[in-house]
């Protein structure tokens, strides 16, 4: 099917149109949400959402009366904290997996794969009990710890595949020149896989930003992330769909933008392992 060049019309019928249909299905709900968020509350139910007489009043209300700014800050602290914890713990571990052969390597690697296999509901109950005992409920730290349960194994997985892509001969050359292992890691390997580290960090940021169940269970009055805030909006402003959808757009914005920025590198890292089998 790749050899004979199809005519333009045939291509439009068999590729462009189906692709457009799938894209419409993919983006439709999001665009509809956006359209609703810029419609006036008064005309929403009479005329329906429309681009004419667009307004930003829903957004200003969101920040003025609902206090979305605090929630955004909470989400930011938790997400950045998780990125720092996840990356700092996983870089040395990934290097070790990538470069050394040692006893128990298979088991340890398997362990990090297995963590991802357990359903979240198995962890959420004991983590709640644990945080209660430690007095950490309703703190940023509790949410950072909970998000790290996913972030650490994930970033180890990603970092191993990035470091594997850097030839061993480079660190060996650095060591012949008098570097120790750790210096070789810091001066040679890390700079080379910096793009990979950034992509992994951004992905951790996105998942922590989007996380909801831990934030609901372990957060509270003091620490309320954006996802919990959006959900609370649903309960409080039941039919004010303009306001609600504005909250949804704001809550989704950072993750969407970041994702579009790094998607190419991220996807190559994610799929590499799977394609090689």
């Amino acid at each position, binding site marked *: 099917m790749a050899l004979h060049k199809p005519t333009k019309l045939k291509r439009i019928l068999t590729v462009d149109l189906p692709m457009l249909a799938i894209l419409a299905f993919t983006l439709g709900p999001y665009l509809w949400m956006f359209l609703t968020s810029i419609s006036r509350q008064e005309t929403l139910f009479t005329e329906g959402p429309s681009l004419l007489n667009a307004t930003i009043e829903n957004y200003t209300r969101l920040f003025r009366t609902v206090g979305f700014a605090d929630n955004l800050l909470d989400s930011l602290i938790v997400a950045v904290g998780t990125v720092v914890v996840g990356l700092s713990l996983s870089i040395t571990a990934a290097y070790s997996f990538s470069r050394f052969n040692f006893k128990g390597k298979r088991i340890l690697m398997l362990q990090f794969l297995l963590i991802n296999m357990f359903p979240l509901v198995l962890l959420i109950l004991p983590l709640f009990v644990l945080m209660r005992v430690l007095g950490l409920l309703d703190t940023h730290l509790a949410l950072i710890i909970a998000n790290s349960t996913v972030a650490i194994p994930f970033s180890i997985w990603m970092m191993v595949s990035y470091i594997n892509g850097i030839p061993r001969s480079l660190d060996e050359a650095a060591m012949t020149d008098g570097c120790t292992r750790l210096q070789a890691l810091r001066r040679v390997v890390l700079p080379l896989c910096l793009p990979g580290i950034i992509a992994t960090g951004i992905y951790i940021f996105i998942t922590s930003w989007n996380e909801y169940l831990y934030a609901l*269970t372990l957060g509270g009055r003091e620490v309320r992330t954006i996802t919990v805030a959006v959900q609370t909006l649903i309960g409080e402003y039941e039919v004010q769909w303009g306001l609600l959808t504005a909250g949804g757009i704001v809550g989704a914005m950072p993750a969407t933008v970041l994702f579009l920025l790094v998607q190419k590198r991220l996807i190559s890292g994610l799929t590499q392992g799977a394609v090689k089998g």
Partner: protein
Amino acid sequence: MTHVSERTARRASLGRHVLPYAMLSPAVLVTLAIVFFPMIQTAWMSLHDYVLFRPNDFTWVGLDNFKAALSDEVFWISLKHTIIWMCTTIPAQLLLGLATALLLNQEFPWRPVARALIIIPWALPSVVIALMWVWIYDSNYGIANELLLRMGLIQQAIPWLADPDTALASIILTLTWQGFPFFAVMILAGLQSIPQSYYEAASIDGASAWRQFWHITLPGISGVMMTAVLLRMIWVANSFDVIFVMTGGGPGYSTHTLPLYAFIKARTNLDFGYGSAIAVLFTMLLMVVVLFYLRRTGKAVE
């Protein structure tokens, strides 16, 4: 001189043995503390009568929670929904993802744009996904009803999420929407790893497009598809947050699934013992399915 090099050699060899573990230990220790220890705690809690508002009451009840679950009607309803939910969502995501990947693998001018945009559902927070689909399904002003009414497919507005007959199906559509880009991206990567020369050879031999798909494309992406299905099974099992926000398990028990039921038991009834027991049961069921799947696909790949 020789003495010194011997010593550095010994130190280097010691380093070679210890260094890998030293570099691993922070990550391993932290995951032991925040993942494995809590998991054992769940198993431990499931063997106790543990209700959070009676803090001093932590009595050993053995397998009573599990027995209670097996004779609990809601448990069986949730199990049935879990099976329906996973057996429809994953194949639907896979098929739609496969179609999307095949399209994205063709050449057309706006391919990079399409490839970037297709991923958006994947990047959205599940709460936002739930919110926008609740709005779409809204019984009075939702666009789903409006479109179907205008096309004449339905005679009157349907309260999609409030009707026990349609609630689960509506949620499954939402979850399919959320998850198919993942399959598309994974399968696309698989497609691009198939050497172009295979297709050239096949078309010289006169193989039709369908036969090329069946004998070159499918075998070439089977590995990726199996990995993707496995990852997705676990992800879907975790994705009860969308259900929780959209319907909270209702109306009645019509959208209860096992992980959601465990979560609700613990969250609203504060019954951590029973909730843990359901979580453990669900995990064991999932593990059985995963192991069975791995054995089957392992054989298929061989």
